[in-house]
């Protein structure tokens, strides 16, 4: 039970291995998250936040602390990442569970707390240098620090964040980033040296070794904007006035070094089709420009040549009045009097072929786009000179590392990761940081760097449901109110966050989640047994299981896969032979509870059976005299035998309180309870007891509705008892 001392993880999360494939089974979101955040578990705990706001806030901080263990940059991720949503099983139904907004809901409570979060134990082991203070370097430093190493970040610029400092403030508020990074440095005892140049005129790896660093992680990112090329030749005109690299604009805008109306009255053309190009275009729009964007890719995102930017970016930009010209390259930049005037844009007929990026053009189909400013944002690359000088590149100029451990194949103790290795998402750079930290730990301990690290995962399938709940719409400020650098996406209220977390279907195995155990819904992972001697081979368990956890093995005996079972009890309810036992919710155990409670209650006595997922308040106050409740793991475990037993033991009324069907956390649990009660009432009506049984559906988190139902039912039972006595 969620005690006053707070949530505590009573058991370690386990890896559940699929027997057939040997792969580790996890929910697809968790596999998609480069940091392997326990998304299902977090959702389960958000879904059951207590009604009391202070207690809820305290639990949110505990959920945040759990996430922080794996990912101290999650407040930043809550604004910029959504990789898990790409793989959410719900995506193909009604839309992914909005993890990003759920995280953002958490940080509203978590960020203020983060400022006072206690630091971890001070490191005492060897010194390790991290070159580059971006997501990769920070994450590596944090992970090393947790393992006891002294981590020092050597950053060229005067601030931390790396590529994060290019993200416009309307997408990532500056205070969120600053609070996250500054507290990370404090909490993890990370030493940060700014203004450290590596390579030409700066330090060498040898220098670092002499300074006592026993290993180095190079995560210098890709700070160099890629210039425009056409058919592998540089496009001339880079020196024209009005021609700017988009990345530089983003950096300057975030530093507050550009005038708020920089592009007022100007026609701005952005070249590029990635998310960064859209950041640039929307930043230029916010600086007053009349912006259009041109890209090689087509508007069909599903095709091989589709535009890579996110749908939300494209939609947002279009709403803001940014025009997009698809399937055009830039073959010529034309200037006039030293100023940029226009670009020549032939139609792009194909972007990718078997060899990869290899754009083809139809030069007979050319248009010209005129403008005052040209912003080039077609990607960026690493600064290769330092790696070259240190002999870390192969003969073809590529970084030569073991891709599993990230250690250089050319120099021991040197590790390379993040965008400099492969351009990707921030979270992917962060994963490199974690990977490198693990490798460095093994390296410094003299252990095998590779052993046991190649793991294969399989995504758990989506549980079948009669209806999939709709995805909440993103709420953006209207265009006229958002053309500034304030965030414009509305976050969740507590009610909305809980609703969205409840939408999560908990696809993954219970043993690698255990949210229910932490929350006290289940004492342990579900354990179900089928007594083969009692089984009559009817197949009900397999047919009615919402999680496809039951298989019928010839000649019809049920076998239950505990990796898929969620312990709802549906099979128990549907088994005519009473051959199935759900551990902790056995018939006898509940019977004993009924005996115990029925002896305690004063008449007119009421016994309530309720689902723990319904988030109902504890029974207190005026109700305690006459009412007791038995909590079940799911409405599906409501059993007519137990209801009748309560009446047999002298209880005057039985109330079943479950969530409405659409709010049922498990599939069909509420429906099953309703079906059962209707059938039982029909039988009870023949012996005049029908009014003593009542089922009510109460939307989760509506305690007032529970009180009303209890009040009314108590009145009804009081009247029945009075009539009986008369």
């Amino acid at each position, binding site marked *: 039970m969620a005690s006053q001392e707070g949530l505590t993880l009573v058991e370690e999360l386990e890896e559940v291995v699929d027997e057939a494939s040997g792969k580790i089974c996890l929910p697809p979101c968790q596999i998609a998250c480069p940091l392997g955040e326990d998304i299902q578990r977090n959702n389960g705990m958000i879904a059951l936040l207590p009604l009391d706001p202070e207690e809820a806030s305290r639990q949110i901080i505990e959920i945040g602390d759990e996430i922080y263990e794996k990912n101290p940059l999650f407040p930043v991720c809550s604004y910029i990442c959504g990789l898990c949503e790409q793989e959410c099983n719900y995506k193909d139904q009604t839309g992914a569970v909005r993890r990003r907004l759920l995280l953002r809901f958490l940080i509203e409570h978590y960020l203020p707390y983060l400022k006072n979060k206690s630091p971890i134990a001070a490191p005492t082991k060897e010194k390790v240098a991290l070159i580059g203070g971006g997501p990769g370097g920070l994450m590596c430093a944090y992970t090393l620090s947790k393992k006891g190493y002294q981590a020092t970040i050597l950053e060229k610029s005067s601030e931390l964040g790396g590529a994060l400092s290019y993200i416009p403030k309307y997408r990532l508020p500056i205070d969120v980033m600053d609070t996250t990074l500054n507290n990370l440095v404090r909490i993890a005892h990370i030493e940060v040296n700014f203004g450290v140049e590596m390579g030409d005129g700066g330090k060498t790896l040898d220098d670092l070794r002499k300074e006592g660093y026993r290993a180095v992680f190079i995560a210098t990112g890709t700070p160099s904007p890629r210039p425009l090329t056409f058919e592998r030749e540089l496009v001339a005109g880079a020196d024209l006035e009005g021609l700017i690299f988009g990345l530089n604009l983003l950096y300057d805008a975030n530093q507050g070094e550009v005038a708020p109306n920089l592009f007022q009255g100007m026609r701005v053309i952005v070249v590029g089709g990635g998310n960064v190009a859209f950041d640039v275009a929307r930043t230029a729009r916010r600086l007053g420009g009349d912006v259009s964007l041109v890209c090689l890719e087509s508007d069909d995102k599903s095709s091989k040549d589709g535009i890579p930017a996110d749908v939300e970016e494209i939609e947002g930009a279009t709403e803001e009045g940014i025009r997009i010209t698809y399937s055009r390259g830039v073959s010529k930049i034309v200037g006039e009097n030293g100023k940029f005037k226009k670009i020549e844009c032939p139609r792009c007929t194909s972007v990718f072929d078997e060899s990869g990026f290899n754009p083809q053009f139809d030069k007979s189909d050319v248009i010209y786009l005129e403008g005052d400013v040209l912003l080039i944002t077609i990607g960026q690359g690493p600064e290769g000179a330092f790696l070259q000088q240190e002999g870390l590149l192969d003969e073809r100029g590529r970084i030569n590392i073991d891709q599993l451990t990230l250690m250089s194949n050319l120099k021991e103790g040197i590790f390379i990761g993040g965008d400099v290795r492969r351009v990707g998402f921030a979270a992917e750079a962060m994963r490199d940081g974690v990977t490198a930290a693990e490798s460095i730990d093994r390296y410094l301990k003299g252990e095998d760097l590779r052993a046991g690290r190649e793991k294969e995962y399989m995504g758990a399938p989506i549980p079948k449901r009669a209806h999939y709940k709709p995805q909440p719409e993103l709420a953006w400020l209207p265009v006229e109110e958002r053309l500034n650098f304030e965030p414009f996406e509305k976050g969740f209220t507590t009610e909305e966050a809980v609703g969205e977390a409840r939408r999560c279907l908990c696809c993954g195995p219970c043993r690698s989640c255990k949210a229910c155990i932490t929350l006290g819904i289940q004492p342990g992972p579900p354990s179900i047994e089928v007594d083969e001697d009692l089984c009559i081979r009817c197949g009900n368990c397999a047919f009615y299981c919402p999680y496809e956890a039951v298989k019928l093995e010839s000649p019809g005996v049920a076998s239950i896969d505990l990796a898929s079972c969620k312990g709802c009890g549906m099979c128990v309810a549907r088994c005519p*032979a009473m051959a199935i036992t759900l551990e902790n919710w056995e018939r006898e155990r509940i019977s004993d509870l009924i005996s115990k409670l029925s002896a305690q209650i004063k008449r007119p006595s009421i016994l309530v059976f309720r689902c723990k997922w319904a988030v109902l308040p504890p029974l207190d106050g005026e109700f305690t005299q006459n009412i007791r409740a038995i909590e079940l793991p799911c409405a599906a475990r409501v059993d007519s035998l137990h209801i009748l037993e309560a009446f*047999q033991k002298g209880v005057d009324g039985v109330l079943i309180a479950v969530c409405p069907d659409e709010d049922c956390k498990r599939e069909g649990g509420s429906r099953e309870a309703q079906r059962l009660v209707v059938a039982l009432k029909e039988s009870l009506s023949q012996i005049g007891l029908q009014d003593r049984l009542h089922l009510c559906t109460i939307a989760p988190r509506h305690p007032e509705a529970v009180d009303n139902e209890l009040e009314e039912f108590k009145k009804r039972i009081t009247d029945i008892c009075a009539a009986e006595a008369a």
Partner: protein
Amino acid sequence: MIVTTLKPLDEILNFISPYKNILIVGCDGCTQPPRGIREAEALSQLLELGGKQRNKEFAFKVNTLVKQCDSYLTAVALTDMIDDDVEAVLSLACGLGPQTIAILYPELPVFPAQNTVFIGSEEREAGTLEERCAACGDCVLGLTGGICPISRCAKSLLNGPCGGSQNGKCEVDPNKDCAWALIIERLDKLGRLQDLEAIQPPKDHQAIARPGKITL
């Protein structure tokens, strides 16, 4: 399988009220909905509560056995269940169960808890039990695409449909499919519509002499 419905509790209570020690016995055979141990337990609880309303106290023993229509299996199982205390038996099986037990225990009153209604199939997706066989003794499914017109047509027509077939539904009950519309649709799919051109003679209702008896 044989489909049953629970008798009104009043009727059952009337049967058993003269007795106190009663064996309630379920059947794990083909009875649908399942009338096994869970159903037997629930019935015992309802009868106890119903008895209380009548100021009548029962002492129930509750059990189930594999097939009450099998006299051998039932005899073996009941040996352990029936002792000197048992005054009456209440059977949850179809109409066969009480008869088997009555023969095995001529001295003991046996009562049915069920009304046996038809031979039917369980459609689990729809959650229904539907009559599909009339035990007519002269199966015509080979001619009718595997759809039984005897049990599924309200008139048991052999050369249907009748004029009351409307949009694939039966005029007797528009909630039910017209069996002959289904037969035609199915034979059409099989490319065997021409089979229907032969007129079927009136059904031989003496295909099996009643009461039926087969010697093994």
